[in-house]
C-alpha cells in the first residue's frame, strides 16, 4: 500500500494537471493494463481505463467506463478469488491475486491483478487503482507442472498400494506356510508319541523316544522362531532355556539341578535347526549317561558370544564319560559330528572332574555372510 506521505512527492514536480502531468502520461502510455474505479459511486464503476487494458481485454473504452469490473469474470473464474477481491474492496485494503478473466471474445486469460486503494488526507478512499498483467503462460506452465506432479504422485501412490498389497499377500503366505510347518511337526510328534506307547521292547522304545525328542527340539525351534518378531535371526540363549528346561523336567529326574548361564546370541535362522539338534543331543546324552542310578547332580548350559563366534557349553558333574561311550559310533555321535561339519563348528569333550564338559564353538554368521551386527 502507498506510504501516507507519498502523495506529496508529486507536488515537487510543479507540473500542471491534464496532458502535461507526467504521471498521467505514464499511466496512459504504459504497456501495463491499468484502471481506476470510484468506490464513492454506486457499484464502484470504472472511471479511468488505459489503452493497454483495452488491448488486453478487447473492449472499447465506452464499453468499459461506468461499469463494474465484474464483466471480466466468466464461467471458470474462481468464486473464492472473487470473494477475496470483494473483501479487499470492502476493507479498503490492497490485494495481489491471480484470477482467471475473459476477453470480450470469450477467450480466458490469467490476470495477475494488483488492486490498491487511494485515500485523501482525511483517509477516505477516493479511488481504487488496479493494474493487470496477462500471466497466462506462467500460470499454464505452473498448472502443467502441478498436473504432472499430481499424476506422478498418483502413480507413486498406486505403486505403493500395489507393493503394500503384494507384501500383505506374501506375509499371509508366510504365515500360512509357517502354520502348516508347525502343525506338521506337531503331527509327526503325535505319531511318534503314540507309536512309542505301543512298543514294549525297551531298546526300540528308547530309540523312538530319542526320535520324538529330536522332533520336539525342531518343533521348539519353530515355535520360538515365530514367537519373536524377527524372522531372520534366532536367539540361541532363549532356545537353550526352553530346551534345557523341557528336557530336564521331561526326564522326571527331580534330583538333577539345572543351571543356566545364558547371554543373548543371535544366529541366522538357517543355522537354528542344526544348532537345536546338536544341543538336544548333548543335553539328552548328559541326562542319560552322567547320572546313573538316580544319582543327583548338576547340569549346566552356557551360551555366550565369543567375538564372531558363539560358544555353547554343556557341563555335568556326573560320572564322567566312559571311554567306550566316547569312541562309540552311535547314531547320536554321528549326528553330532555331521552337524558340526554343517555348522563349521569345533567340538571338544573334556573332563570336568567330576563329570564332563562339552564345548562347541561355531561362527555366528553364514560362511561368506555379513558381519555380526
Amino acid at each position, binding site marked *: 500500500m502507498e506510504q501516507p506521505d507519498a502523495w506529496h512527492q508529486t507536488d515537487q514536480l510543479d507540473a500542471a494537471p491534464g496532458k502535461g502531468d507526467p504521471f498521467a502520461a505514464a499511466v496512459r502510455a504504459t504497456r501495463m493494463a491499468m484502471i481506476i474505479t470510484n468506490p464513492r459511486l454506486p457499484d464502484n464503476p470504472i472511471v479511468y481505463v488505459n489503452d493497454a487494458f483495452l488491448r488486453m481485454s478487447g473492449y472499447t473504452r465506452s464499453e468499459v467506463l461506468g461499469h463494474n469490473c465484474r464483466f471480466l469474470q466468466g464461467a471458470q473464474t474462481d468464486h473464492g478469488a472473487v470473494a477475496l477481491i470483494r473483501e479487499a474492496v470492502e476493507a479498503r485494503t490492497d490485494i495481489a491475486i491471480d484470477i482467471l478473466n475473459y476477453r470480450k471474445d470469450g477467450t480466458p486469460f490469467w490476470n495477475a491483478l494488483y488492486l490498491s486503494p487511494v485515500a485523501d488526507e482525511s483517509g477516505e478512499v477516493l479511488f481504487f487503482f488496479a493494474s493487470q498483467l496477462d500471466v497466462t503462460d506462467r500460470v499454464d506452465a505452473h498448472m502443467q507442472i502441478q498436473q504432472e506432479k499430481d499424476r506422478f504422485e498418483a502413480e507413486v501412490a498406486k505403486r505403493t498400494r500395489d507393493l503394500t498389497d503384494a507384501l500383505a499377500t506374501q506375509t499371509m503366505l508366510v*504365515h500360512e506356510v*509357517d*502354520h502348516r510347518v*508347525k*502343525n506338521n*511337526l*506337531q*503331527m509327526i*510328534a*503325535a*505319531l511318534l*508319541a*503314540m507309536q512309542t*506307547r505301543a512298543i514294549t521292547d525297551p531298546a526300540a522304545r528308547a530309540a523312538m523316544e530319542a526320535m*520324538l525328542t529330536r522332533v*520336539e527340539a525342531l*518343533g*521348539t525351534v*519353530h*515355535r520360538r522362531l*515365530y*514367537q519373536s518378531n524377527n524372522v531372520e535371526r534366532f536367539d540361541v540363549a532363549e532356545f537353550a*532355556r*526352553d530346551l534345557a*528346561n*523341557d*528336557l530336564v*523336567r*521331561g526326564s522326571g529326574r527331580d534330583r538333577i539341578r539345572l543351571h543356566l548361564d545364558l547371554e543373548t546370541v543371535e544366529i541366522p535362522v538357517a543355522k537354528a535347526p542344526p544348532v537345536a539338534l546338536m544341543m538336544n543331543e548333548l543335553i539328552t546324552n548328559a541326562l542319560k549317561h552322567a547320572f546313573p542310578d538316580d544319582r543327583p547332580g548338576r547340569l549346566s548350559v552356557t551360551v555366550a558370544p565369543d567375538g564372531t563366534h558363539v560358544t555353547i557349553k554343556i557341563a555335568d558333574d556326573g560320572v564322567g564319560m566312559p571311554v567306550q561311550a566316547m569312541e562309540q559310533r552311535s547314531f547320536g555321535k554321528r549326528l553330532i559330528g555331521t552337524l558340526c561339519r554343517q555348522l563349521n563348528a569345533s567340538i571338544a569333550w573334556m573332563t570336568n572332574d567330576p563329570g564332563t564338559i562339552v564345548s562347541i564353538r561355531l561362527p555366528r554368521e553364514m560362511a561368506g555372510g555379513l558381519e555380526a551386527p
Partner: protein
Amino acid sequence: MTEPLRILVVEDEALILMQIEMMLEEAGHSVVGTAMTAGEAIALVHETRPELVLIDLRLGDGSSGLDVAHAVRDLGGITAAFMTANARALSDDMAGATAVIAKPFTGTVLEESLAYLEDCVRRPPPDALVPAGMRVAPAWLASFAQMRA
C-alpha cells in the same frame, strides 16, 4: 491329583486330537468328548458341561475356535484354553480363555500346561509353573494375583 478333570478336546487334526486324548487319559483325566468343528464343539459344551475345554483356533469347515471360546464364556464356570500354531493371532483377552498353548508343544509342555490348568479348575490360584510356550491371559493373571493377595 484330587479327581480326574472332565475335558472336551476341540481339534480338527486327527493325529493331534489322538495324541492329546491319549496324553489326557494317561494323566488320569476323563475326555468327555472330542469335536472337529465349532458347531460340534458348542453342542458338546452344552451337552457334556466339561470342566475344561482345549480349543484349536482353526477348526474344520473353516470354523473358528473363537466361537467355541465365546460360547464357553457365555455359559460361565468352564475353563478354556487354546492350543494353536497361530498363538500370535489371539488378542490379549483370548475370547475369555485362560491361556494359550503354542504348537508345536512337547509332551512335557503339554503335561505341565495341564497341571497348570488343573490348578485353575480345582484350586485357583494356580501354583504350577507356566511352561515355555504357554501364555496366560492378562485378565486371568490379574484375577489370580487378586486371589493370592
